[in-house]
């Protein structure tokens, strides 16, 4: 029990100070019937560091990691190279083992980093302000819908078919309980997202339209017209970004008129980690800031006039407003936000643009190679680093076949939309700077065989 420093004699001495005969005296308020006499049967006892390492390593080896072979999975989580210094810095104990900065005088490190993160996110997404992070992109997306309801006092949100189906699913779950009305649809295997359809649905009850950019099929489209249509009806445009690296190459949603921009930050600085922890991004225009959920860090001065940072606008929060709070969130994803911020600082604008360019060029080249395979059709003419192929047969078994050969071929739309017959042949393929030419060739020839 290497993590417990008290010795048996310490315990005796402390019980003496307390005036208790035994440790059981300290559990006197627990009714006898609810007490356990000894360690719970059926569970193993404590183990050495070596034994635990062996156990966990054996479990890890049963998985096919992204680095184990050609890898093309995306759809909301992306494999990018993260510089070594990012992980090194976030493991400094002063960051890793710090608590929420409620005592700002001794938490300036975390607070300044939050302020820098907020500033970086706001600029990248094209908004005035951002918060200090959310759980992930999907929960940030729901919080944006709720925020739009608060701002507009209307209860109907229109969700684009291009929005990640798991994000739609989260919103549907929550809306069942809150009474929000959601209008949803599924994507069609067409080159362009459903902008005109969305515009046609906006009415006087609409709080917001939610679009993803690039969308679930990898498509990109100008959202200015949609923004104008929303604003004409006094609704908000919510944009969702799940691949922030794209914004190094293409215009930000804020620039095109989105009022709230949320997203999944994982692809910058945060590993795949089988789905979490990730880092939700949440940004909006200055005039909406008091309706924004989540933690916020603000600049101020100390008693000597020195610049410093504190958590602020907490009057919106759960610990003050209780049932009237803007949301129930009482945490953020600070350590992941730190990794994001460090990676972004290493990249800088120049590096981000280069990274984006490399991603786009690699994806573009891969799309051409894969589209030349008989039985493969490229659906998305315009994309960033992720595109959709329509195969001559169902994509799910093809993905399974290729996985058995050690090739992670992309995400079949059948997995994401099991009930949609029209999407079963769709395969979404992501290509990043980590993808080599050889990976693409291996994938293409395996695909050729699988479709033959």
């Amino acid at each position: 029990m290497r993590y417990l420093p008290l010795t048996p004699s310490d315990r005796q001495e402390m019980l003496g100070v307390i005036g208790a005969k035994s440790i059981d005296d300290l559990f006197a308020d627990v009714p006898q019937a609810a007490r356990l006499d000894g360690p719970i049967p059926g569970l193993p006892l404590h183990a050495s560091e070596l034994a635990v390492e062996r156990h966990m390593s054996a479990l890890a080896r049963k998985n096919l990691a992204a680095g184990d072979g050609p890898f093309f999975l995306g759809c909301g989580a992306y494999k990018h190279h993260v510089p070594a210094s990012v992980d090194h810095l976030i493991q400094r104990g002063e960051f890793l083992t710090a608590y929420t900065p409620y005592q700002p005088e001794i938490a300036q490190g975390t607070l300044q980093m939050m302020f820098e993160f907020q500033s970086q996110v706001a600029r990248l997404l094209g908004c005035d302000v951002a918060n200090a992070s959310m759980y992930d992109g999907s929960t940030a997306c729901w919080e944006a819908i709720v925020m739009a309801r608060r701002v507009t006092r209307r209860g109907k949100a229109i969700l684009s078919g291009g929005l990640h189906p798991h994000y739609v699913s989260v919103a549907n779950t929550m809306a069942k309980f809150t009474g929000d009305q959601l209008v949803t649809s599924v994507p069609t295997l067409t080159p362009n997202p459903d902008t005109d359809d969305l515009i046609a649905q906006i009415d006087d009850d609409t709080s917001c339209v939610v679009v993803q950019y690039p969308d679930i099929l990898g498509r990109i489209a100008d959202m200015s017209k949609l923004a104008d249509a929303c604003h004409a009806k006094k609704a908000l445009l919510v944009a969702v970004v799940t691949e922030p690296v794209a914004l190094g190459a293409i215009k930000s949603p804020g620039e095109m008129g989105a009022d709230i921009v949320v997203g999944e930050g994982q692809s910058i600085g945060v590993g795949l980690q089988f789905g979490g922890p990730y880092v939700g991004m949440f940004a909006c225009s200055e005039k909406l800031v008091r309706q924004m959920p989540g933690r916020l860090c603000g600049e101020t001065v100390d008693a000597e006039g020195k610049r410093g940072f504190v958590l602020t606008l907490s009057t919106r929060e759960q610990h003050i407003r209780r049932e009237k709070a803007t949301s129930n969130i009482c945490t953020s994803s600070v350590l992941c936000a730190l990794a994001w911020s460090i990676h972004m600082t290493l990249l800088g604008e120049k590096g981000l643009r280069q990274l984006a360019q490399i991603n786009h060029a690699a994806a573009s080249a891969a799309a051409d190679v894969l589209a030349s395979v008989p039985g493969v059709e490229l659906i998305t003419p315009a994309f960033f680093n992720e595109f959709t192929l329509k195969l001559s047969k169902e994509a799910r078994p093809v993905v399974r076949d290729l996985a058995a050969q050690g090739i992670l071929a992309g995400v079949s739309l059948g997995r994401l939309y099991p009930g949609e017959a029209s999407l079963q042949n769709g395969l979404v393929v992501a290509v990043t700077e980590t993808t080599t030419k050889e990976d693409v060739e291996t994938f293409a020839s395996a695909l050729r065989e699988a479709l033959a």
Partner: protein
Amino acid sequence: MSTINQSGWRPTTPEAGGSDAATFTGNRALMLDEPLIFEIGSISTTGVDFAEAPAGKSRLAGLERHRDIGLPGLSEPETVRHYTRLSRQNYAIDLGLFPLGSCTMKHNPRLNERMARLPGFADLHPLTPVDCAQGAFEVIDQLAHWLITLTGMHSVAMSPKAGAHGELCGVLAIRAALDARGEQARKILLVPISAHGTNPATAAFAGFTVEDIPATDDGRVDLAALKARLGPDIAGVMITNPNTCGLFERDMKAISDAVHAAGGYVYCDGANFNAIVGRVRPGDLGIDAMHINLHKTFSTPHGGGGPGSGPVVLSEALTPYAPLPFVERDGDHFRLVEEETAGEHHAGTFGRMTAFHGQMGMFTRALTYILSHGADGLRQVAEDSVLNANYILRSMEDVLDAPFAKSGPCMHEAIFSDKGLPEGFSTIDIAKGLIDEGFHPMTVYFPLVVHGAMLVEPTETESKATLDQFIGAFRSVAERAKGGDPAIRTAPHFAPRRRLDETLAARKPVLAWKEPVGAQAAE
């Protein structure tokens, strides 16, 4: 070269510092101030080397970004220095005791970190074909087994991403169960006033109406008041046990029985599970749902405020409503139950709460910690955390008012109040005084049921020597405050910053860096 900070960074107040000599930079030897990345970086600097992008046609549909984003870059050595310097402005559990009540801060073993970084876990995509992620599902299954066994509950929902998200999961399961019974009229959740502020916020966020239940003078839920309020409009109760006064709710079973008899469900905030793990199973107390903050009981690092992870254990009654996705063992194989595979067997599920499977990176850390401790070690965790808290309570009660000192032993945390401090001195002064002594302050002004509350939680990973040093410092600061020492009212004196103006920050919010006015003109 395009720079972001055209005005150049200047130390804020080089002449500040009282009687000590000022330095040119404003720094003090190893205490180094650090400007913002926006003030030292530039958009043409990068700390990453890339190969030239291959030439090829652009498929960006005319959406190419033309305007500067305004993201500063630093070289790698500058980046390492920037963040290392920032880190030195932080207190952390690796530096010393963090006696925060209601927010357990314990040692974070580095083995947890190493295991979470094994490529098989860290480099695994959430949509990896299920057959290629069997080891990851086995981690989830093993952790689930421990959580179910330790709590004596029926099942566990692993996907909630933090404690408050877990609360949401629990109350949504309650709502789903009531709806399935056709009891839509049960819209009110009862929340004792000693509950965490997230409890009422969660209930409201999930569409419930919240009603408070008072506490008795001894710091526990008023059972009579609770019973009197039960009826056909009550969905259930949200309770914290051990509660935020640091006390065990002796009547927990009676509360559960009464709520169940009235047709409601019992939600328990399990933030304080570390005080009873291995000694009490919440399932034996009649609880229907309880979230477990993995960072608190199972030592995943708090990281300056997150990420968290909040699995929710459920009773048999609530199990059919558990959220998606979840992992099921099928012989030697694990399968993932999602929207399509839920089928009739899981038709009651209330749906998905988050895009993927939850905080996998936290699961590997928590399982590592659990296996290291084992069933015997975890029981010792509860005993030592309760022993440490009572040691502090008895060592301080002659100096500070301890409102519940006669209510029985405290559990993992001890509570004091500002009663007896002279005019003009308050809890915050004692907190800031502790900073100068090299300790992080305890939780202040919480719970709300105690005036000027100071909630102290030492946790089980503190040695007696550390506790004795803390008690010495705490007593000294309290005695100085009681004696009216004016220096306590202006503490901290030795921290990287003196007291910060929080009112200014809220009145004129500056939430993002902006180019200093006139910077353009100076160009």
